[in-house]
């Protein structure tokens, strides 16, 4: 009945042997993301860019081209319209409203007056003034950096510093490539998307820590085993779990992507990408990076003689 019974032995895939291939791939992905970020840039949503966003459901007599012609000549600058989910739902984006906050909020009235008779329902109106937009951007960057720092400190506290460095590099890799993903697809980057990026950081570190935990345990258990072999064993021992958890998370996320509605879609697709890249980076980047850190030569060697090493304080050594 349980399908898992078919997997009777620990897989023996050679991840560490291919670490240079992984490293090259990750390096290329990061480089590509950085280039995309600077060349293409992110498609910032109204949260960070500031401006006006109005979602309307049109009446039967109007369609998107009617709206476009009505909004053409009212002097609000660049106004873009797009269908949102279904033909009668239209997203109106005033990219760069003129003037200060008071004039911009007045622009909403101008816009609504121009659409008189064409709108069945104003589904949402978002106005973010220039002041708040830049504040949200700063707060977002701060939240991201602090999350990374907090995670790094925790891992440093629980493991050796080498683990912390490897985890943070993998984490930065995930965050950068996710931003690259948004730059490539030009999916709107807003507050919710930022939350997606930070969740990816959380998910990916979760994955990494599970494998690191196992590395620490096998290091203690097999003191004579070659280090690279030991890393590979740790990955393989946790591989079933890595795959299963990714699959269940992806199942839930795909349900969210398909059925969660238009507003949440950009957020869900980012999470899907992040789970894939986060799983890959734990196996293909974080652990292989440990191989370069000469763990055994340094701190770990001393913990063989004395049991007071910080790593040995973990409750599971009992």
């Amino acid at each position, binding site marked *: 009945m349980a399908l898992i019974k078919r997997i009777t032995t620990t897989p023996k895939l050679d991840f560490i042997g291919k670490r240079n291939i992984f490293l090259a791939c990750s390096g290329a992905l990061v480089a590509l993301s950085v280039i995309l970020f600077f060349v293409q840039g992110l498609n910032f949503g109204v949260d960070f860019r500031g401006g006006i966003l109005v979602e309307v459901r049109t009446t039967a007599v109007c369609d998107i081209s009617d709206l476009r012609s009505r909004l053409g000549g009212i002097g609000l600058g660049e106004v873009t319209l797009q269908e949102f989910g279904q033909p009668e739902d239209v997203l109106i984006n005033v990219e760069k409203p003129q003037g200060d906050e008071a004039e911009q909020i007045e622009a909403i*009235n101008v816009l609504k007056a121009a659409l008189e008779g064409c709108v069945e*329902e104003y589904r949402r109106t978002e106005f973010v003034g220039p002041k*708040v937009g830049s504040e949200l951007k700063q707060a977002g960057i701060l939240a991201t950096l602090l*999350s990374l720092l*907090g995670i790094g400190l925790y891992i440093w506290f629980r493991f050796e510093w080498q683990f912390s460095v490897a985890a943070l590099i993998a984490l930065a890799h995930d965050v950068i490539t996710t931003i690259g993903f948004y730059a490539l697809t030009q999916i709107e980057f807003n507050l919710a998307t930022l939350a997606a990026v930070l969740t990816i950081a959380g998910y990916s570190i979760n994955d990494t820590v599970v494998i690191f935990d196992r590395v620490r345990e096998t290091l203690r258990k097999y003191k004579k085993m070659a280090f690279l072999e030991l890393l590979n064993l740790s990955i393989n021992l946790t591989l079933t779990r890595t795959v299963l958890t990714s699959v*269940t998370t992806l199942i839930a996320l795909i349900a969210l992507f398909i059925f969660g509605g238009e507003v949440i879609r950009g957020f869900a697709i980012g999470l899907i990408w992040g789970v894939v890249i986060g799983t890959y980076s734990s196996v293909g980047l974080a652990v292989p990076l440990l191989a370069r850190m000469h763990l055994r030569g340094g701190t770990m060697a001393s913990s063989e003689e004395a049991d007071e090493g910080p790593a040995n304080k973990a409750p599971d050594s009992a």
Partner: protein
Amino acid sequence: MVQIPRWQYITVIVVLLGGLILAAPNLISRQAAEELPNWLPSDQINLGLDLRGGIHLLMEADIQGVIEERQNNLAETLRLDLRRDGIEGTRISVAPDGAVILRLADPSQVDLAKDIARRQSVDYLVTSEGDNGVRVEYSDQALIQLANQIMEQTLEIIRIRIDETGTREPSIQRQGSERILLQLPGVDDPERVKDLLEAEAKLNFKFVDENVVPGVDRTPPGTEILPSREVGPNGEPVSYAIRKRIMVSGENLVDAQATFQDNQPVVSFRFDSEGAKRFARATQENVGRLFAIVLDNEVISAPVIREPILGGSGVISGRFTTQEVNDLALLLRAGALPASLVFLEERTVGPGLGADSIRAGEIACILGFILVVIFMGSTYGMFGIVANVALVANLVLIMAALSLLQATLTLPGIAGIVLTIGMAVDANVLIFERIREEARLGRGPVGAIDAGFRRAITTILDSNLTTLIAAFLLFFFGSGPVKGFAVTLSLGIISSMFTAFMVTRLLISFWLRRKRPKALPI
């Protein structure tokens, strides 16, 4: 690990039962929940504005503007006082930083000028500037006090204005030193709310300067040209020359009501005794002249004074709709805002979109849940079913915690729950995989399960705590929707740890003792 002390059984049962009871009100309608007897928990999950529809407005009070105005007044007062005390030829200016600067013609009079300035108020800091200058500014403490006072008044007036519109459950909070966040659920006319908030509602009765024809004559000092609500015979805009001096101010109003006069909607008002006295005197002395009712620098009407108005009450009429009359009466009753407000951010969600979002979120949750349950069941068989029971318990606990904490559930928050459904089984997968591994090393079922749980615990703690750290930071530094997401994610992580350690373990140990299996089903 397999031997479970009695207190743990009891804890699990109590927590789960409590969870069920707290989560239960969410299954019935809001109205039905409110009618539950008091001793039953009836708190439902608090839906965010993005789900229930409503308006979110971030405003900033222009405190700087108030201070500038006061400093300008101070400059005028000082001009008079200095002259009265025999100090002539002083140049007075207001510096960009808000300080009033006096440049005296005779440096020997600096000390006298300082005394005069100090006499105005203890709130002022008076210092020398150069050898013939005096600098008068608010002390830092006075500035903070002034700002606090303005903000408190502003909040109070906003509260009255919003309450009078009949909005249920408004949330009006001060944010930082000069900002106010207003959240109104279920408002369907955001423009009206904004109009109500934006109006300073400074009502003044002033005289019309009948010697000046607007747009033709030069405007003398003490007179200003103000636009009117009235329109000319051909629909052209009308403006009046209005004397700046205030005849009676709106501060002297005690009541204002919307009513009808000659089938026209009008606002009737009543002055307090001082206002009534002043109004009576002014109208007695000026029969036949025009006076103007000015609201926020717009002339509402400019009637002729036909006879002295002695009763201390009157009506304001002038091309109003019923709604406008209601709002004007409301604004006059609530009082004028001490500082003007600027809208920094607006987010309005219509009821249609909110309902759609809830529906979509529910479908995503249910489908995600069903798919994960099928996957776990087919992968782990009997143990998968145990994990699924833990997952249900997990969802119940999240709902219960959201209801209990009255945390706000937002659309990204629903996404957090869906994500949690996927991630919650992780702890179980870690345990099961560890059990399988221990069994492969040759341990019997009991030994394998015992070792599996014990070994998996550290890993689960380490991995979930890192995610929890990220979620906490998201909560503290994120805003709005991000916060809602952080809340459900954190709750999901905590409850998934609890269900994996307690619920799963309890069920498996129960099964072990009942069946005494020779081999593990996974």
